């Protein structure tokens, strides 16, 4: 009976995957017509060869390192200082008997920062479950809610406390940026969390949130790759995870081969970029400009 049910479930999954593939093709159809209209005769845009080369090389590195990680090869990543700050914040909330507030930014689940934030959320959930500290997760985008619910649930299960998971603590607030900020500010003032963890993509609401958290006396750890918002977190939070450190943190915490491999691959890409930069500067100084122009996309 059970195997029959499992078979049905597999069939259903196959149907759903086909649906997702169908939607992808549907989504690609405007691109198809656009390509036919604009390029009429060519599928290959020679002005974007540089992009192709970079994508192939970078993805090559990433796939190589993912394979290495999957084989169990040790991939060294230095410890990110912000990780200690997260543990310290959760520990402090536990000592004070007050909740932890986790804010995952205001972008949707298709944003890479939100994905990284969800990975960190899973680890935070595991931590709070071990300490039996309440965790509030106010969400800005509806699509993020199920992902956050899954991550928190998995975190509680990983800590051996699935019964302690409270679905109502993952709350949708509002799609509107400032309504969301007002709602989260309200939570900060009324529930007075002892630790505010803000990881993800933030915009103008960043200072409103961080400043309110500062006023309530919470220990605050923030991380975003939105360069224009980092200054606000730096001035108002106890610790800030800057830019790519956000992705490194998620890789470090999860030890997931795909994330570790991506991080190592991007490190190698950075080394190559440094080399290209030095070479470009030398050639520019020598009056050769074609090398620099090759990287430019109109």
């Amino acid at each position, binding site marked *: 009976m059970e195997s029959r049910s499992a078979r049905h479930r597999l069939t259903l999954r196959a149907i759903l995957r086909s649906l997702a593939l169908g939607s992808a093709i549907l989504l690609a159809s405007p691109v198809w017509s656009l390509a036919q209209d604009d390029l009429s005769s060519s599928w290959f845009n020679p002005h974007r060869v540089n992009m192709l080369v970079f994508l192939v090389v970078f993805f090559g590195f990433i796939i190589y390192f993912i394979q290495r990680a999957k084989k169990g090869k040790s991939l060294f990543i230095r410890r990110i200082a912000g990780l200690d700050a997260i543990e310290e914040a959760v520990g402090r909330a536990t000592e004070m008997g007050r909740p932890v507030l986790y804010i995952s930014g205001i972008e949707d689940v298709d944003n890479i920062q939100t994905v990284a934030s969800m990975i960190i959320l899973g680890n935070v959930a595991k931590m709070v479950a071990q300490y039996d500290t309440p965790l509030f997760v106010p969400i800005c985008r509806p699509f993020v809610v199920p992902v956050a619910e899954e991550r928190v649930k998995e975190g509680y299960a990983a800590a051996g406390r699935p019964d302690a998971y409270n679905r109502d603590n993952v709350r949708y607030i509002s799609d509107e940026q400032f309504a969301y900020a007002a*709602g989260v500010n309200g939570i900060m003032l009324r529930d007075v969390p002892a630790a505010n963890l803000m990881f993800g993509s933030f915009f103008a609401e960043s200072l409103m949130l961080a400043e309110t958290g500062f006023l309530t006396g919470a220990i605050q750890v923030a991380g975003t790759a939105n360069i224009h918002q980092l*200054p606000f977190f730096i001035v108002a939070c106890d610790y800030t995870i800057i830019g790519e450190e956000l992705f490194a943190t998620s890789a470090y915490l999860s030890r997931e081969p795909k994330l570790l491999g991506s991080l190592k691959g991007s490190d190698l890409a950075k080394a190559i970029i440094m080399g290209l*930069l030095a070479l470009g500067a030398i050639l520019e100084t020598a009056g050769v400009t074609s090398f*620099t122009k090759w*990287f430019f996309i109109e």
Partner: protein
Amino acid sequence: MGTTELIWNGVAAFLVLSIYSFLYKDNPFYKFAEHLVVGVSAGYFAMILYYNAFLPKLIHPLSSGQYWYVIPGILGLLMWARFSRKWQWLSRPTLGFVIGSGAGVAIPLYLQNYVLRQLSASMLPVGFSSWPQITNILIIIMVFCALAYFYFSKEHTGVFGGAAKFGIWTLMVGFGAGFGMTVMGRVALLAERVVFLRDYFHQLWNAVF
């Protein structure tokens, strides 16, 4: 200004002051304004999605015979499975589709804007014969050091650690400039609200007396 406009501007002025009262402390006026904005935005976005997405991107194509649009429709419906503990896994293909398509669109865009263009703009002629060339040396050193800070495969020790430290100082200089610029923008927003309140009370005074 007519009576109707005066009343509506009065509501706006009351809400602005209610929100600003948060600067003193949490109070019933702020709570009222907060709940109002959250509630109104939820209703507003539901209508926006209905008229800007649901109707033109699903119902209209389906009613004009483009039946393949039923596929994203079904994927959307699957999201409702979240309400059932037994069937909530059915929503995963939809989430996978959203995340996958988002990444597919974002990766080339990021590579173009944040890697290739930045790289091209940083390849500058260097030297000691003019100030721009000397500044270019500084720019290139700063870019190198900032990249060193974000290199995670090596501990920040020794010469590399020194470069990474200089890199973080470089970033802080940039953040400081960004902070100042954005704060000026916020002050401009505050000034606009203050002007609105001033004009409103001025017109209210004229209307009453």
